[in-house]
């Protein structure tokens, strides 16, 4: 806990000092998309079983663990079992995993819909694995990489973004994880507490889109 506090203040300090310099730069690289506290859009996307899935289908859910992920990316693959674990642990508590592949298969053929179906079958996914056909949803969320997690909390019928970032702090070794960011966030929400670490960053594969 103490560590998190120190880390947070470090990050804030670093972010502040970077921002001063960054203001001089042109802001082309500024990310659009959601910040913590924003209302997340609903969507209706095709699942690997060819049925359409929408957040509004989940009447009983308290929220969602929306994860932009894909078939080809080594980081996404490294996290697959942990994504399955998240759904296993939290779906019954009201926070199901909704996985979305945001990549354009024309740019990354491994991330085709058929590839998704195969992946879901091979790994026995127990959660929907949706295809962001036409790539309309990931830009609204502001996802930039796979895997990229958005924890949403249902509040008065709206889905409020409560956490954006990585699943935990060690993609390479699940046995050497010190901070389970997503679990900490969902646990806090389930117990009615604010999320302490509401954003994190981690290396991931850039989302593949054709250049304009």
């Amino acid at each position: 806990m103490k560590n998190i506090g120190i880390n947070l203040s470090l990050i804030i300090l670093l972010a502040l000092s970077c921002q001063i310099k960054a203001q001089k730069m042109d802001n082309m690289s500024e990310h659009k998309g959601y910040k913590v506290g924003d209302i997340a859009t609903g969507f209706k996307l095709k699942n690997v079983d060819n049925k359409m899935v929408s957040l509004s289908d989940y009447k009983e859910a308290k929220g969602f663990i929306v994860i932009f992920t894909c078939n080809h990316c080594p980081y996404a693959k490294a996290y697959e079992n942990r994504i399955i674990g998240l759904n296993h642990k939290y779906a019954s508590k009201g926070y199901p995993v909704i996985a979305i592949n945001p990549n354009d298969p024309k740019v990354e053929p491994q991330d085709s819909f058929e590839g998704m179906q195969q992946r879901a079958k091979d790994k026995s996914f127990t959660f929907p694995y949706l295809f962001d056909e036409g790539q309309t949803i990931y830009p609204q969320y502001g996802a930039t990489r796979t895997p990229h997690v958005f924890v949403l909390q249902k509040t008065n019928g709206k889905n409020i973004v409560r956490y954006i970032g990585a699943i935990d702090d060690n993609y390479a070794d699940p046995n050497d994880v010190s901070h389970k960011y997503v679990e900490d966030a969902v646990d806090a929400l389930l117990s009615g507490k604010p999320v302490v670490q509401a954003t994190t960053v981690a290396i991931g594969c850039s989302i593949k889109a054709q250049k304009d």
Partner: protein
Amino acid sequence: MRIQILILMTMINFNSQGQNTKKNMSGELSGINDNQKVTVVNFTKLETIINKKDNKLYVINFWATWCSPCVMELPDFMEVNKIYHNNPKFKMILVSLDLAKEAETIVQPFLVKNKMNVEVYLLDDNKRMNQWIPAIDSKWSGAIPATVFYRNGIKLDFKESKMEKSELIEIINKNL
């Protein structure tokens, strides 16, 4: 496999020497093997390498062998490095985000295969990503490739995307 690659490279080099003797005579054969090492570092060490106060423009590219847009832009980076590497005020550094245990089995053979004559570090600091990513740039979401430009520890520019060669040259010329 490695021996085959080396033999193939030697053949290619002899061929190109025939056409371009002066340029390749002195360096490339020996230079390739001398320089194509990967040094595994943590972020604390990397910071001292990229934040040197020596008046050089540091072009630092974060990449990985498995990252296809990274691999696609590397030939342009190598060409640009060839143009500028003799300039005493210029230095290009590649920072691989491959796994540390793959430094010698995957990253180094990749450098040899692609004749990448450039300083390469492998950043082995997975558990502190949430600290070093914002330290490099507060807007970096963590997607790669990403390229950052420093001089004397001061950031001059940052791109979180694949770069066109012309764009890279433009930023270098602007800051050199």
